[in-house]
């Protein structure tokens, strides 16, 4: 249960970082956020609501990924290299599922079609999400260990 809770919190925070990165894009703030809705075929006409919905969807999806991350740790404590590697793997999975497959399906493109520009604009950011997820999970684990020692 501890790892699930820790994973959820880490995922929500990593999702928040990802959403904030999407807010500070070039051009209009948050113009990329509705893409998250588009992965699930949701279109909202009002651009402001669409951006807010995209923002919160990214955080929720981060939480879901965090829960899975926590569940896979099976109540064991993990080392920093394991946390970062798992995190990077989760970032890759995020990129594969959302930025590649779902984005292509919803845009009616071939499943694995990808150009260099789109790869560059999505892959590093999605990997970063995963690494931040793993790193926050590790930090939360360490904080709990320190708190347990102090009691």
């Amino acid at each position, binding site marked *: 249960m501890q790892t699930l809770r820790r994973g959820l919190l880490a995922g929500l925070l990593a999702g928040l970082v990802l959403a904030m990165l999407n807010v500070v894009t070039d051009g209009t703030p948050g113009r990329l956020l509705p893409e998250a809705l588009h992965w699930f075929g949701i279109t909202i006409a009002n651009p402001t609501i669409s951006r807010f919905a995209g923002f919160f969807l990214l955080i929720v999806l981060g939480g879901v990924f965090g829960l899975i991350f926590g569940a896979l740790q099976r109540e064991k404590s993990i080392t920093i290299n394991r946390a970062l590697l798992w995190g990077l793997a989760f970032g890759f999975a995020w990129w594969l599922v959302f930025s590649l497959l779902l984005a292509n399906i919803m845009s009616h493109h071939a499943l694995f079609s990808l150009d260099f520009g789109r790869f560059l*604009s999505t892959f*590093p950011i999605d990997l970063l999400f995963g690494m*931040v997820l793993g790193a926050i999970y590790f930090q939360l684990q360490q904080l709990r260990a320190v708190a347990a020692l102090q009691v």
Partner: protein
Amino acid sequence: MSISASARDRKRVATTGAKESGAATTPITLSERSMTGLALIRIFVGYLWFQQLFWKMPPGFRGLYPYIIRESQHTIIPGYGALLQHTFLVGCSSLSTPAGCTAFVPLAACVWTAELLVTISLMFGLFTRLGAILATILSLQLYVGLAYAPGEWIWTYGMLVLLALALVAVPAGRRLGADQWLAPRLQAAGQHHRIARIASWLV
């Protein structure tokens, strides 16, 4: 009596001075919150560099060309414009497109790659100080070339330099970054290998 009192005063002054100098040199330990905050700043500065890759994409790097022209015209260092004319802009016949330029593409590729390395280093916290040093050099070059160009606010590039320097000063990659894993390993290996010791300065 007066001599002893003045000796006592001197001693007190000396003790106070020692205390003050001791307080001034006491190492400062950053809290977890501060380190995490710095890590987030590092990620966002990395993202700043990341976004600048997209308006000068390979293979042509066309977006960079007007800026090189502006740098050659408005630089604050004498001779820097001539340097650009004889490197980036050699053979160029147009002010708007890099047509005829012989060295523009390879040199622009170097700039783009350097910015990509800064991006990877700062966003992922991988050899963060090395990435920050590279960012400082790139920012200084922008400051020298563009800070006084018409329509530019001089502090735009000044702030870019200062942001990069701040990330050279603090080990911002040791939270939410690969340096958290790398730093202790390099420090341990640095006791036996000189290269690892040098590499440990860059995390």
